[in-house]
């Protein structure tokens, strides 16, 4: 009997190719999208999970703003770890990291740049549950001048030789000679704290690259990442309260706080994060989209199979007459559902695995697509598939409840209740589609809005050059070399301007200086806020296209002149109580126990990108050698032109600093890169919305083709009685228009609410104007009419005689 059911199911699917195709395709697209999105979501959720990670917490700092504490810094003082361990028994251990962003290795004659590394306490291995492939966990980071490399870095640096015991000179401004004492496994990609190698904590004591105030234990310099290992079953909230209440450093407007390491990637977005973290909102949105798409394909399926099953009334009638019982009919229907869904799942998994490499490069992650990981999705998929399968049963129950003599007539119309259900399903589908459309429009608009937003500075054609100078030279000699470099660079025809700056817009917090505690011109002492500043040379503003509201840039005076002039932005002026920037010039502020003279006020520009509100910013004059900023001529505008210019820059750089590395950044690219995640999110939103609409259209298409078939006779009779094609089209389309209308009305508040909460993530945001809703509605209506009319036009155009003859 089961073989027979199976046979019927297969033959039925083959016979009704369009119906099967639409159904399977819709389901497969839905499931494949769901899988792809959920793999990403799961990956984002999988950050920083290792054995014991639930006991690991990061210490961070809250700063008092007004009368509430807000998260202010992901980094802390080097004293907080030991202090917390001593103060609270539930703190079992701590590890401190001093981050080294960019470093250069020298091994004999070879020079290799290795970034993302740390100076760390020996407790690292225990807390982060890392084992060493070579070397001893207990001793590897114990002695000064020890280095532990990851497998990949060891391979990169030493090839197949045994790295243990080999020596490396690590440069970061100044060199330190270290010995390899261990090899650890590569750190997984899904961690917020990427590490390529570790230097022992004691290494910094003899290394000039680390300033003295970072070496001694103190409550002055919060530049350390501190992680705690807590005792099992520690009451997190209680400990957090104790940490917040304690005031070891005796500074009232800041306090320490703790957060689970597992939450950092999605929930933490503080200044000085180790890397740009993910976003829980984005994950929520993506999850919602995944479920909407799956639901759409599910509704599609229910709708199509319910409608289609009416056509099978005759078959069910015959079966009943032949003695089939309800149970048997339902079972058969169930089997067909299962077959259809299985085909869709197989197709979906196949599609997902084919698309996966592309997907990985798109998301910029290295996720793996393994069936074992899909198992995580099974509970969810299972529930939904169960729903789909049950959907197959519903029509069977409905039909088998008719008396066989009625069923045999083969012309069942659904009951009013059934019709309501179908209407509800279609309206839900439209609703989801319109909400997605609204979302797409808002997201796309917000992203282009951000990209087009004037940032108050011209980043085009500006290259920031940086390098590690390996030759051991005195600072005065180095500065002389920079002067030479300066002049040489300006001789290159492609170069318009050259200057030097500690950092630049889009470079983030990493290279900014900051301090707390300032005295305003009117004498007010302010101690709560963090003030950001950086060092530049006079030509910076001109080169960066930053305009002055008043005053002027620094004037280089006598050599060794200790310049105590500063240039501030508008926001800074307002913040220190000066409403009119013109009045700021020559006013004095006090910080670092010195008095500073305001030389000029620049227009506000976005230093951090548009997700962050404009911050007070201050520039100081110094002979910094951080970044050489080179502005290329406007006529350099092709890829080859850029390559050539960079080659020329590098040639000059190497001629002045023969023993060095050379790095360059086009800073407009780097600035835009801040929105990479958002752009990708927008793109993903577009793609998945398109897919969702496609699925919904498939369903509509199937439904109309069926309605037209069912109403063939009616259409024929109407046409014989003089109805025009247009009238018939109206007749067939009016219901869909009504449904879109109802869905549209519901979609407006839903869409507005959702997108408004998304926009809350941005400091600068587009408004949600009324036309967005109008556009979404018109698009939905347009797509609907197109899909529906394709079929109904053909039906309306048919010769009525043909339709009536069939009767």
């Amino acid at each position, binding site marked *: 009997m089961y073989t*027979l059911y199976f046979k019927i199911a297969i*033959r039925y699917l083959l016979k009704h190719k369009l119906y099967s195709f639409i159904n399977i395709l819709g389901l497969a697209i839905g499931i494949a999208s769901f899988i792809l999105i959920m793999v990403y979501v799961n990956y984002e959720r999988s950050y920083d999970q290792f054995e014991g990670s639930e006991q690991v917490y990061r210490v961070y700092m809250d700063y008092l703003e007004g009368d509430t504490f807000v998260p202010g810094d992901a980094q802390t003082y080097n004293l907080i770890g030991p202090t917390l361990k001593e103060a609270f028994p539930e703190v079992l251990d701590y590890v401190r990291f001093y981050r080294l962003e960019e470093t250069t290795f020298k091994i004999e004659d070879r020079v290799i740049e290795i970034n993302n590394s740390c100076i760390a306490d020996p407790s690292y291995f225990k807390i982060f549950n890392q084992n060493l492939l070579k070397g001893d966990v207990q001793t590897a980071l114990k002695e000064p001048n020890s280095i532990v490399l990851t497998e990949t870095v060891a391979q990169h640096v030493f090839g197949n030789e045994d790295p243990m015991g080999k020596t490396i000179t690590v440069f970061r401004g100044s060199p330190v000679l270290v010995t390899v004492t261990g090899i650890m496994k590569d750190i997984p990609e899904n961690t917020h704290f990427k590490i390529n190698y570790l230097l022992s904590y004691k290494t910094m004591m003899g290394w000039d690259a680390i300033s003295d105030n970072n070496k001694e234990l103190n409550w002055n310099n919060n530049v350390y990442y501190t992680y705690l290992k807590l005792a099992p079953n520690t009451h997190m909230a209680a400990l957090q309260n104790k940490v917040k209440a304690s005031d070891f450093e005796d500074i009232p407007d800041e306090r320490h706080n703790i957060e689970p390491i597992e939450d950092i990637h999605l929930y933490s977005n503080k200044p000085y994060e180790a890397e740009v973290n993910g976003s829980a909102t984005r994950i929520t949105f993506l999850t919602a989209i995944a479920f909407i798409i799956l639901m759409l394909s599910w509704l599609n399926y229910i709708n199509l199979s319910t409608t289609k099953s009416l056509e099978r009334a005759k078959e069910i009638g015959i079966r*009943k*007459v032949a*003695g089939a019982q309800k149970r048997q009919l339902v079972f058969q229907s169930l089997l067909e559902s299962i077959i259809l869904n299985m085909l869709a799942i197989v197709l979906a998994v196949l599609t997902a695995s084919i698309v996966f490499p592309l997907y990985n490069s798109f998301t910029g992650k290295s996720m793996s697509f393994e069936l074992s990981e899909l198992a995580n999705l099974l509970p969810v998929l299972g529930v939904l598939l169960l729903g789909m399968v049950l959907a197959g049963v519903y029509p069977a129950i409905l039909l088998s409840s008719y*008396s*066989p*003599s009625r069923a045999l007539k083969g012309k069942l119309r659904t009951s009013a209740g059934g019709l309501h259900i179908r209407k509800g399903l279609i309206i839900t589908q439209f609703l989801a589609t319109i909400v997605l459309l609204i979302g797409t429009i808002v997201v796309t608009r917000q992203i282009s809005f951000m990209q087009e937003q004037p940032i108050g500075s011209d980043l085009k054609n500006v290259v920031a050059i940086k390098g590690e100078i390996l030759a051991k030279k005195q600072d005065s000699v180095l500065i002389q070399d920079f002067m030479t470099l300066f002049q040489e660079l300006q001789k290159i025809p492609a170069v318009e301007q050259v200057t030097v700056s500690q950092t630049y817009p889009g470079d983030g917090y990493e290279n900014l200086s900051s301090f707390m505690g300032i005295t305003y011109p009117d004498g007010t002492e302010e101690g709560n806020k963090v003030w950001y500043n950086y060092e530049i040379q006079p030509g910076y503003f001109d080169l960066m296209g930053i305009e002055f509201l008043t005053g002027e840039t620094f004037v280089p005076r006598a050599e060794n002149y200790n310049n105590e002039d500063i240039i501030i932005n508008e926001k800074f002026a307002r913040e220190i109580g000066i409403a009119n920037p013109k009045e700021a010039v020559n006013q004095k502020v006090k910080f670092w126990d010195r008095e500073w003279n305001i030389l000029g006020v620049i227009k506000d520009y976005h230093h951090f990108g548009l997700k962050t509100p404009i911050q007070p910013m201050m520039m100081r004059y110094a002979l910094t050698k951080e970044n050489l900023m080179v502005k290329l001529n406007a006529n350099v505008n092709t890829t080859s032109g850029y390559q050539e210019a960079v080659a020329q820059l590098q040639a000059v750089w190497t001629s002045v600093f023969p023993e060095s590395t050379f790095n360059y950044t086009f800073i407009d690219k780097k600035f835009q890169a801040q929105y990479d995640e958002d752009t990708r999110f927008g793109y993903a939103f577009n793609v998945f919305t398109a897919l969702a609409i496609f699925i919904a259209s498939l369903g509509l298409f199937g439904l109309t083709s069926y309605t037209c078939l069912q109403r063939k006779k009616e259409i024929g009779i109407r046409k014989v009685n003089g109805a025009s094609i247009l009238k018939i089209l109206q007749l067939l389309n009016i219901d869909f228009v009504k449904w879109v209308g109802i869905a549209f009305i519901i979609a407006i508040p839903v869409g507005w609410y959702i997108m408004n909460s998304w926009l809350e993530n941005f400091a600068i945001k587009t408004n949600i104007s009324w036309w967005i809703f109008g556009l979404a509605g018109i698009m939905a209506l347009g797509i609907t009419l197109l899909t529906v009319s394709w079929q109904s036009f053909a039906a309306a155009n048919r010769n009525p005689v043909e339709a009536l003859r069939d009767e």
Partner: protein
Amino acid sequence: MLLQLNNISKWVHSGGQKVFLLKDINFWVHEGDFITIMGPSGSGKSTLLNVIGMLDDFNEGAYTFLEEPVHQLKEKHRANLYKQYIGFVFQAYHLIDELTVRENLEMPLLYKKQSASERKALVADTLDRFNIVGKKDLFPAQLSGGQQQLVGVARALIASPKLILADEPTGNLNSKQGEEIMEIFKELNSQGVTIIQVTHSEKNAAYGSRIIKLLDGRIE
């Protein structure tokens, strides 16, 4: 006595009024009868046949089939009853399009839970008896109307019913095909199968032993 209908009435409500489809039908059938129900369109012939075949309910009266009070039985029992004793032949054949001739024949046996070997033997017998062995792997759409009705009759007979209910069995056939089907009925009847047919054709009615005339739901 195979079956007996006492004061059977069936009605629907239309515009607040009771419209009788069947009114006060008294009717009995002995084993071996060949009965013809005749009457103009809308007189209730098919409805009566459906009631006898237990495909339709009725509103009033009593129906006894082989001593069982049908009107008091649950649906499941009723299904068992007709599964076992009644075979149907329809004007529109009502074969399942997705199944081959052989599978269409086999279907009623599946619902009677017969073993595979029994089913095979019965299907082979029936194919043989109706001379359609050569057609066994064809689908209904590949057969002529007469051949389809032949399969329909064969399917009605495969479970060896006591009673065959035929609703205009030759209605969609040409006269030659129709005659062949009627000959088969005649032969079955002579073997002891009870037949009730609904027809417009006087010629077909002549095959039967008793004629019941219906008008507006009543027996004339």
